[in-house]
C-alpha cells in the first residue's frame, strides 16, 4: 500500500518520529556554511572525530568541515575506533520510523556511524520516503546498489537487557540528524 502524503507532511512526520526515537533533529538550509555553523555547535573543543566522505550527498557540502581541528578524514585504526564523534551522510530518510539510511561501503560511513559516541548524520529532505519498502521504488537507490550494504538507523543504540532502558551500548549513545532543506 502506498500512502500518498505531501512532501511537507513527510518531513513533519520524519521530524516527529526521529525525535520520538531519541534522535535530535536540526533543519538547516542546504548550504555548506550553514551546515558548518550547525555542526560546529555539536562538536566540543578538543574532541577527535571522523569525517566520512559522503556516499550520496554533494561532497562540497562537507568542505568547510575540514578546517575543524580534531577532524580526521583518513584515520588509522586506533583513531577510527576511539573517535568521539563521527560525521556521515545518509542516502535516505524514512518518515514513518524516523530513520536515516547509511551506506556501509568501502568508505568510512559504516565505521563512523558505529564506533563513535556521537553520530552526526546529514540527510536531504528530498531523500525522505514514507516507509522502508519505498526505498525499493527509488531508481537512484536501487541502481546505486545502496540496498546491498546499508543500515537503517533509528535513534541511538539502546538496550533493555540490563534491567532498564539504557541509551548508548556498542553503537553511539547520541544521534544528531541534520536535515537539509
Amino acid at each position, binding site marked *: 500500500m502506498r500512502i500518498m502524503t505531501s512532501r511537507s507532511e513527510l518531513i513533519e512526520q520524519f521530524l516527529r518520529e526521529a525525535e520520538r526515537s531519541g534522535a535530535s533533529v536540526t533543519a538547516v538550509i542546504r548550504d555548506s556554511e550553514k551546515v558548518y555553523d550547525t555542526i560546529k555547535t555539536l562538536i566540543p573543543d578538543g574532541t577527535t572525530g571522523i569525517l566520512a566522505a559522503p556516499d550520496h550527498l554533494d561532497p562540497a557540502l562537507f568542505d568547510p568541515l575540514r578546517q575543524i581541528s580534531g577532524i580526521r578524514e583518513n584515520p588509522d585504526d586506533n583513531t577510527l575506533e576511539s573517535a568521539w564523534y563521527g560525521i556521515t551522510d545518509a542516502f535516505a530518510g524514512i518518515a514513518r520510523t524516523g530513520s536515516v539510511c547509511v551506506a*556501509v561501503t568501502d568508505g568510512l560511513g559504516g565505521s563512523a556511524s558505529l564506533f563513535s559516541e556521537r553520530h552526526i548524520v546529514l540527510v536531504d529532505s528530498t531523500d525522505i520516503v514514507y516507509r522502508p519498502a519505498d526505498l525499493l521504488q527509488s531508481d537512484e537507490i536501487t541502481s546505486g546498489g545502496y540496498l546491498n550494504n546499508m*543500515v537503517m538507523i533509528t535513534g541511538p543504540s539502546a538496550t*533493555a537487557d540490563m534491567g532498564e532502558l539504557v541509551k548508548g551500548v556498542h553503537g553511539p549513545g547520541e544521534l544528531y540528524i541534520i536535515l537539509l532543506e
Partner: protein
Amino acid sequence: MAEDHSMDTPEYIPRKYARKDSYEALGNAIKLSLDYEQDAVRRNTNAFNTGRYQATGKIPDYESLKDRARAIKEDAIRRLPELLDTLRSSVEQNGGTVYLARDAEDATRHISELCTGYNAELVVKAKSMTSEEIHLNSVLESAGMEVVETDLGEMIIQLADEQPSHIVGPAIHRNREQISTLFKEHFETNQSLDSGEELTKFARDLLRKKFIRADIGISGANAIAADSGTLLLVESEGNIRMVSQAPPVHIAIAGIEKIVPSKADLFPLLELLGPSGTGQPLTSYTNLITPPLNLRPFSFNHNPPDTRSFHLVLLENGRMDMRDDPMLREALYCIRCAACLNSCANFQTLGGHAYGGETYSGGIGAAWEAGTHGLETAKFGELCTGCSRCVPQCPVRIDIPWLNTVLRDRMNRSGDSEKFSFVYRGLLQSAPEDTTAPFQKQFFGNFATLARWGSRLAPLSNRLAATSPVKALLEKTVGLARDAELPQFATRTFAQEYKASRHDFNGSTPEVQKDAEVVLFPDIYVNYLHPSWGMAALGILNRLGIQTVVSDSFADGRAALSQGMVTTASDRAHELADGLKRYLDEERDIIVIEPSVLSMFRSDYGHLLNDEHLLTLFRERTFDPFEYLLNAANLTGRIQEMTADPGTISWPPRIFYHSHCQQRTSDAAEPTVKLLKSLGFEVKTSSVECCGMAGSFGYKREYYEVARQVGKDLAVQLEDAESEFGECLVAASGTSCTDQLKALTGRTVMHPLEILDSLLYTK
C-alpha cells in the same frame, strides 16, 4: 572473564530442566520459574506486549502486510530446494562460501574447522537462536577458542550458564539486582556495577576490546535473500554491526527456513519484525548486508589478514522433515518476533525456562523443539491453553493454538493409556483414536458427559465433590487439583428450566417457531452450569419482542479439542452440526452465550468440519448475545429506553468487566462494553490477555498454581480499579473466567446478560 561459575545457587533454573522430555522436568521448571523468575518475566513481557499493541496499531496496512509476509514465507518454503541453489550461487559470486549442514554435529564440526583454519583464538558472537540450537559455544570452546557473547542478554546467560528464557530477550527472567550480583561475582573492578547505565558501560568497554581484536565474528540472520545473498539483521545494541564489521572473518549461521526469494521480500518482514517483537517501528539498527564487506579490516587482532571473508552455514537439522509435515511446516514460517510469547498469559507468568525447551520457547517453541529435538521434548506445549490471544498477533498468521493441539494429539496417540480404558470406556465418549490419551485428558475432554452426570446428581454431586476424601480421590485418579474450587453443577439444567417456563416466553411456542427471528443455542456450560445466563438471554429477547426459538443443547467439542483429542472433537462438531442442521439450512441467526463455544464455531470448526458452506454459516450466522442485539438487530436505542438506571436497584454506577480471551480474538467483546456503557455504567475493562483458568487448565493438579499466579494480574486490576474509581460491579462473559474471578477475589461475578435482564425487568 572470571573462571567457571558453579550453579550452586538455587535461585536459577539449572539447564537440566531445559529439555522437557518428561512431565517431571516440566513440573520442576514450573515450580522454579514461579518461585524465582515470575516478577522479572512478567514485567518484561508486559512491556513488550504493550509496546507491540502501540507499534502495530500505527501500521496503516498492518493486516495486508501480514498477508504479504505470510505469502512470502509460504512461497519461500515451497521453493526451498531451488532457493538453496540460487542462494549458493549468489554468495559464491559475492566471494563467500556456503555450507549446508545436515544436523547440529555437522554444523558445529564445519564451523569449528573454519575457525581453526583461520587460527582463531577469539570469536565474538551476536545473538543467534540457531547457534543455541546446535550448542556451538561449547564446541568452539573445547577446540580452545574464547567465545564471547556480545548481545548483553546473551552475555548475561553465558555468565550464568543458563539457556535463553525468551527468543528475543534471552535474559528477561533476571532483574537489574540479579544482573548486578552476577557481574560482581564475575568481574573484579573498582567500577560501580549497580545501575543499568553502569552495567551497560562496563559491558560496552569490555566487549569493545573483544570486538576489535576478534579473529572471527559469528552472527545469525533474520532472513536471507537468495537472489543477492543479502542478510537482514535487526538489533538495537550495535553488537551485530560490530560482529559483522570489526573482525575480518564473518560466519553467519541460519536455519534454511530463513531464505526468501529476493531482497524485496526482506522489506515486509523488517517492517513487521520491530513492531511485533520489541514494539519499535524499527529497531535501532536494521542491517542489510551482502558480505564479504568492502570495509578495510582492523589491524588489532593477532593475525590480521588483508581481505575479508564470509562463510554462510545453513542448518537443516530436521527442517526438511518439518517442511514435509503439513503441521510443522507452519513453524518454518515463523520469523521469531516473539509476539506469541509476549501476548501469552502463561508465558508472561512463567517465561521460557518453564514454557520452553532447550532452545525455543513459548507457543511456537513446542513445534520447533518437536521438529529439531523430537516430539517427546515438546511437553511444555501443554502450557498452551488455546486462549488464542497470540493468533491475531502473529505477523505470518500461524495458528499456534491449533499447532499445539495437533502436537498434543500426536503425543496422546503415542501414549499407553489403553490399558486403563476398560474402566471408563463405557462412561466417556472418546473416539477410538483418542483412547490412548492419558486418563486426565479423556476425563476433561469429555466434559459434557461429566456435566450431564454431575447435573443429574446435583446438589449431591457438588457436595460430594467438595469433601476431602473425594477431592483426594479425584486428584489421584484424574489429576484434578484438590485445592481448586470446582464448578457447581446446576440442580436443574437450562433445558429443564426452559421447559418448565416456556409458556412465559411467547416467542418460543411451537406455533411461532417458524417465524422466530433468532435461535438461542444453549451450550453445555449454560445448560449444566449457568442456566440463569440462558434464562436471562431468553428474558431479554422476550422483553425486546424478538421471537426466539431455543435449540437443543449439544457438546461443541471444545473440551476435547483442548486436550488434543482431535477426533473426539471432530465427532462432537459433526453431531452438533447435525443437531442444528435445520436452523443452519434455514440460515437462521444463532446466539451463543459461552465465548469459547462461539470461537469454536467461528474458527476451530475450520479444522474439524470439511464442508465449506457449513463453515461459512457457522462463521457468519453465529453471534455473541450483544453482538446480535447491538450490531445485527440494532437495538441500542430501544434497550436504553426500556432499562432502568443502575441506581434504582442500588448498584454502583461502575462495572469492572473482564471479557473472555477467545471473545476478544473473535472481535466479539466490544459490543458488551458498548452495551454496559449505554446502560449508564462507567466501564473499566481488564487488560489481561487471559484470566488464567482457560477451561480445564486451572483445575489440573499440575497447572493449578500457574493458573492462580496468572490470575493475580486480573485480581490486582480489579483492586486498582476500585481504589481509583470506587466500588464496582464485577462482570465477566466466560464460564471459567467467572470461576477464576470468584476464586481469586471472593466477589460475586455477574454475566452481562444478568445485568441487562435485571435492568429491563426493573423499569
